[in-house]
């Protein structure tokens, strides 16, 4: 297996982008990444694009071909593949790109992720997102996607004493970080009271415990480390790329206060990278709901199981804390265009490791981690990156 590096990144602004189509989002993120890497179109050997539900959000499948056309690469006839794993589609696309380069099959690979979520109206987006859960045995009976995370939240609160305020503190922290990120959907601070006074979506989760509906795209360019030097001095090596899966339905899992797939992916990623949780300088984790970040920092080994709420309250994961988590604002404040999220997390970590994160820069960050989850934990992808 060859060593793989990220040599370019690019992403659109995240938000309700009424003026931009799916095509334009894909083009914008892709072009930025290609310019950042300094590669030419003919250097590209393959493309992988993550999209959760393009068929239902914009009535368009076959978006691999669409991405190729948008990039103007049809004369090269390179393979362009759409990858789907619900909200982990972007992370899995990264993993596929990593495998393609590490194996020696391809040299330069473009990984993208995109979702256009605001072209549907009313409750349709909620219904589409519910397809990340088990349609026959969860959604059919009235369980919503926030509802499944609410079951996790109540369970965690009951067994570990996590409080509603501690959940809210995740959103407060991530909104603070988002206020420092010019690409974030929400660039404003909120208070614990704001979260607790926002409408209830699925008890105990309030509206401000939930990530929003977002349009956006992100891209990353991968290359073998030895070839990467030809293009850039700012080489960010992928020390680990691990995907792990579990049952589709939440009720069939072995644990309810943890995502076993994420625990498994993290363990394998630390082994692959030869690092410990305490070596991580900065992390982007999948905070689709506030409880998800609390469970994530436990599953990743940053804190013991059950201590995630308290650690958040004590500032462990704040921008100036011991392990800053979701410096970008996370899914909560940066926004969560489902298929793009896994690649957007890579964008943030690469910026941090290059020292380009401006007001939200973690000083001296050299090792970063991303944690991307599909559905209620049916898929988890962990990447560990290092500046070399």
């Amino acid at each position: 297996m060859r060593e793989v590096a990220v040599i370019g990144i690019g992403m659109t602004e995240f938000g309700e982008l009424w003026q931009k189509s799916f095509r334009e989002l894909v083009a914008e993120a892709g072009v930025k990444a290609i310019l950042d890497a300094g590669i030419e179109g003919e250097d590209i050997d393959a493309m992988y694009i993550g999209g959760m539900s393009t068929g239902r959000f914009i009535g368009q499948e076959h978006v691999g071909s669409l991405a190729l056309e948008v990039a103007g690469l049809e004369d090269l006839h390179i393979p362009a593949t759409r990858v789907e794993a619900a909200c982990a589609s972007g992370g899995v696309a990264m993993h596929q790109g990593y495998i393609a380069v590490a194996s020696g099959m391809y040299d330069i690979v473009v990984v993208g992720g995109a979702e256009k979520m605001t072209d549907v109206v009313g409750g349709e987006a909620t219904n589409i997102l519910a397809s990340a859960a088990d349609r026959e045995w969860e959604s059919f009976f009235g369980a919503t996607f926030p509802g499944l995370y609410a079951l996790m939240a109540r369970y965690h609160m009951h067994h570990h004493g996590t409080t509603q305020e501690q959940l809210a503190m995740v959103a407060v922290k991530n909104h603070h970080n988002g206020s420092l990120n010019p690409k974030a959907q929400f660039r404003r601070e909120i208070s614990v009271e704001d979260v607790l006074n926002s409408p209830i979506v699925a008890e105990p989760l309030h509206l401000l415990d939930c990530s929003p509906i977002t349009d956006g795209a992100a891209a990353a360019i991968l290359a073998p480390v030895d070839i990467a030097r030809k293009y850039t001095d700012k080489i960010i090596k992928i020390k680990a790329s691990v995907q792990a899966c579990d049952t589709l339905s939440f009720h069939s899992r072995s644990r309810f206060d943890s995502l076993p797939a994420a625990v498994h992916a993290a363990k394998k990623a630390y082994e692959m990278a030869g690092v410990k949780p305490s070596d991580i300088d900065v992390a982007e984790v999948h905070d689709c709901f506030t409880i998800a970040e609390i469970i994530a920092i436990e599953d990743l080994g940053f804190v013991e199981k059950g201590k995630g709420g308290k650690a958040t309250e004590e500032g462990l994961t704040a921008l100036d804390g011991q392990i800053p988590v979701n410096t970008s604002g996370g899914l909560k404040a940066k926004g969560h265009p489902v298929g793009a999220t896994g690649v957007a997390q890579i964008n943030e970590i690469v910026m941090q490791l290059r020292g380009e994160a401006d007001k939200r820069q973690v000083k001296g960050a050299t090792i970063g981690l991303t944690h991307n989850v599909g559905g209620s934990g049916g898929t988890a992808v962990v990447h560990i990156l290092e500046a070399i």
Partner: protein
Amino acid sequence: MGVARYWREIPARYNLIGKKCEICGKVYFPPRTICPKCRRKSIGKMQDYKLSGKGTVESYTIIYTPPPEFEGKAPYAIALIKMEEGCYLTGQIVDCKLDEIHIGMKVEACFRRIQEDGKRGAIYYGYKFRKAES
């Protein structure tokens, strides 16, 4: 949605018929084709098994923002329920005040209307749960 998709799940949804692995004796609901413990040995050895319908609430939520099919039904309770046989499932809790629901509550299955396919489509039935008698 075609009616067949609903019709083929009727045994499980009306009568809580899951599967029991003949090799290890573990009961699965929703039904599974392969026992994840015995895997190859369980092929062809998964027998129909009717659950008692009795279980315990392990966690629950009150849904205030429902999907379109449940429009007008909110707020309603969804629970993670551990069945007597050891398997878990997801279902609504009905016939009680929402604030009576708690972790550890004993429940039993009841047969109810779940949703309908628009105003003219099929009405879908299945299990919900209520406070257990005893």
